[in-house]
């Protein structure tokens, strides 16, 4: 009898948890999306396609849509070429200094996009060091190029997003059984045939996943087109503009179009990736880098990689150097040289200037904590029990993955600009919590999948062993499961921290006086010509990200190195 009561208690806890989860997911993901739909289709009397019709019949707007798609396609392609080539080089050719090069190649992922764009501007912009340097060296009267428009956007996106391709393909290549390569070679396959028949099938899933991610970040990119886009208009910049002009109906229409583009491409790629499932063999012989070959090809590869690393490192060095310069010197000298600590002192001495940094740290950490609270038990239930209900739960949690940042933000605005049941009768817009809530929503898919990976890697028997030794479910979960998946969980958490701390798109749409984040302060300081402070903010954020990165490497060596 007592056992029956206990078992009922166990189920009660679980069902209570499902209820809370469904409340949150409905209130903060599903309902907001329906509010956006309603907003877009509502007309004076009832609902219709009128808003879409008038939007799509404007050639300028059609141009915006095609620009957006084109930006997604181009960034996926350029990221793919560079990322795959780098992963191949690192796996098959790299010898000395491999670890350091690997970390350098990963580093763009660790720097918020908005900071990268700013540092690129400081280097290659009209008055950038690099541009001025070339002008000076070649005695030109004006800049030899214009760092603006479509080309500049793609350049920036490529050098911030290729990392997805690089990392995914690099990890996938570890599952290529070297003996299969040797087998193919001994059967007479050429290098190209080996790539096509042995390597490509194994990395295809990784390539497709990366395609989705880079396309998605391409179409939803905001900081690059906003800061260096020139006349190149895309949906994400137009959404922010519509919102700023208080045209929420237009913003909603734009959001739905952006969502449809994103969804279509993802479904297409998902469809293909299902056809390319490869189960790697258990026992693989590790790939050994080719040694002792110093042909022209290898030399050229080395040169290309050197150039790549230069492209990655230069902006970081530039922003660090310039953050120690007086703003006047940055603005007037070709090579700024007036050293000062003023920029940093201002940040740490004036509470008002320090505030955005603290805000961002606090909001990111809240997102990590909330995200983990939601996803750790969920991933456990999903992996452990499977079934249709858990499949649906997983789908809901992964939903934000197909929602570009501006979609999430506009949905939240449409839902919480008035008192809501889901916020216990409050309106959240303009308050502090709306930004961390948005960060949490976008963090869910990443956290869920990194937890799942950790859980799937966990020996199922550990749980059975613990229970047969007398531990109940709760004890087993806390003492055996959590400690053993902790590295994976923490790595996911740190990644979220890095990705949210300099977040710009959602922040721009949602911030208010109480929660001005660092990304917004960087941009406003720059626009107010306090360039030094803006750059110092950037450097401090980069430092935080790198500390977090070091933490991931310590926690989860196997996965990243």
């Amino acid at each position: 009898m007592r056992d029956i009561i206990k078992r009922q208690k166990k189920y009660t806890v679980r069902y209570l948890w499902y209820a809370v989860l469904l409340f949150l997911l409905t209130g903060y993901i599903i309902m907001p999306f329906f509010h956006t739909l309603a907003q877009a289709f509502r007309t004076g009397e009832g609902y219709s396609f009128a808003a879409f019709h008038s939007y799509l019949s404007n050639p300028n707007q059609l141009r915006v849509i095609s620009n957006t798609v084109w930006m997604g396609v181009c960034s996926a392609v350029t990221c793919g070429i560079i990322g795959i080539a780098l992963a191949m080089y690192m796996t098959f050719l790299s010898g000395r200094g491999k670890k350091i090069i690997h970390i350098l190649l990963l580093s763009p992922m660790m720097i918020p996009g908005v900071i990268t764009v700013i540092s690129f501007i400081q280097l290659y912009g009209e008055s950038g060091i690099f541009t001025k340097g070339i002008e000076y060296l070649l005695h030109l009267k004006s800049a030899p190029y214009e760092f603006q428009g479509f080309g500049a956007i793609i350049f920036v996106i490529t050098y911030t997003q290729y990392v997805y391709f690089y990392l995914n393909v690099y990890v996938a290549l570890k599952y290529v059984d070297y003996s299969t390569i040797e087998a193919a070679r001994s059967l007479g396959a050429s290098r190209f045939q080996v790539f096509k028949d042995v390597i490509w099938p194994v990395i295809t899933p990784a390539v497709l996943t990366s395609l989705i991610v880079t396309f998605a970040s391409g179409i939803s990119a905001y900081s690059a087109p906003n800061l260096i886009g020139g006349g190149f208009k895309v949906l994400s910049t137009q959404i922010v503009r519509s919102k700023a002009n208080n045209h929420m109906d237009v913003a909603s229409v734009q959001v739905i179009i952006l969502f449809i583009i994103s969804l279509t491409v993802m479904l297409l790629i998902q469809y293909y990736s299902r056809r390319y499932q490869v189960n790697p063999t258990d026992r693989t012989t590790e790939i050994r880098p080719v040694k002792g070959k110093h042909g022209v090809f290898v030399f050229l590869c080395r040169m290309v990689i050197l150039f790549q690393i230069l492209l990655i490192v230069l902006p970081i060095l530039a922003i660090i150097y310039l953050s120690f310069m007086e703003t006047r010197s940055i603005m007037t000298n070709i090579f700024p040289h007036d050293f000062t600590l003023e920029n940093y002192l201002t940040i740490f001495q004036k509470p008002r200037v320090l505030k955005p940094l603290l805000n961002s740290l606090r909001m990111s950490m809240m997102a990590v904590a909330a995200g983990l609270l939601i996803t750790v038990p969920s991933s456990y239930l999903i992996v452990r029990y499977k079934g249709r209900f858990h499949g649906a739960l997983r789908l809901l949690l992964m939903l934000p993955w197909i929602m570009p940042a501006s979609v999430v933000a506009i949905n939240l605005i449409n839902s919480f600009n008035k008192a809501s049941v889901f916020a216990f009768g409050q309106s959240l817009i303009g308050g502090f919590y709306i930004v961390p809530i948005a960060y949490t929503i976008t963090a869910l898919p990443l956290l869920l999948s990194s937890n799942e990976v950790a859980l799937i890697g966990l020996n199922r028997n550990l749980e059975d062993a613990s229970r047969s030794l007398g531990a109940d479910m709760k004890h087993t979960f806390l003492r055996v499961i959590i400690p053993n998946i902790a590295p994976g969980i923490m790595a996911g958490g740190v990644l979220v921290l890095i990705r949210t701390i300099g977040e710009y798109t959602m922040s721009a749409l949602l911030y208010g006086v109480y929660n001005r984040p660092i990304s917004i302060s960087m941009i406003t300081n720059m626009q107010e010509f306090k360039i030094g402070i803006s750059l110092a903010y950037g450097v401090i954020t980069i430092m935080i990200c790198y500390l977090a990165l070091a933490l991931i490497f310590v926690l989860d060596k196997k996965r990243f190195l």
Partner: protein
Amino acid sequence: MSDIIIKDVSHAYETEKVLADINLTIHSGEFFTLLGPSGCGKTTLLRVLAGLIRPSEGRIFAGDTDITELEPEKRNMGLVFQNYALFPNMTVKENIAYGLKIRKYPKHEIEEKCSYYMELSGLSDLRGRKITELSGGQQQRVAIARALVIEPQMLLLDEPMSNLDVALRVKMREEIRTIQRKVGITTLFITHDQQEALSISDRIAVMKNGNVLQTGAPKEIYDNPNQEFVANFVGASNRIEKAVYGKFGIAEKEDVPYVFMRPEQMKLCRDAADGVRVKIENMKFLGVYFEYEVSDGEYEYSVIEINRGGGHTGWTIGDTAYLTCKIPEKERKRSQEEGA
């Protein structure tokens, strides 16, 4: 400790039946082995006993108590997994102490019990080690000590030897048997290795496709297999059809359609009076013995001759010989003495 009784237990995964009406009694203090090929349901049966799977039908009793509905943590079964399932976040000592800590034993008692079982399993020097720093054999000892320290009513061993190399396997099975005798614990052991089963068990149940085909002491099962699968899975055997009983001099005592004869119970002779005329189709030298495949044109038989030194027995492929089951009394006696 009490007997463990498995009564009418059946289990199905979705529509696939993996256990069909199992009835077994495992006596207190007994070393009981489930022997069968992979996929025969033996691991499922073990998991049913451990409470990790609730059977679709049937009951499990410990003595008079029905334990079918009991959660695994309430059953007090010591479980040793094929891959040991040691907690990688804990040391050797912490792994072993885990079950005791959950049972809220006082510190000094935990210390005492852990020390005793670590000593018993030869782990005393390794107490502070991380699991990843242990060899396969050491990991297995930790897994066994962890299962024994909670003083379970039964020890469940799920193919614990399958990850060890051959030499270590033989050594560990002796060790397991010694520890089991010392502790006197009822043990259920699972294996697909007939040698292992024969050498270690008090009793064996041979399983196939979710059914128990035969239960008995090792010698009983080896000498009197009740059906062809048992005869061939536990050792090799020749099936002799009723039609040829006469030729082999087997009395038609019972109304059985065929009898099984072990290869070592048959002999090749040169004298036509001694048996059935056969041709030697193939031969293998395996160190301890020679193995011949012979044929009388209709049936094929396998025969083993012990290598008693002096190399070859004189048969070559293609020779004609006479196959018999009547091993001369003198030789049979000698073999028995050697065997004992």
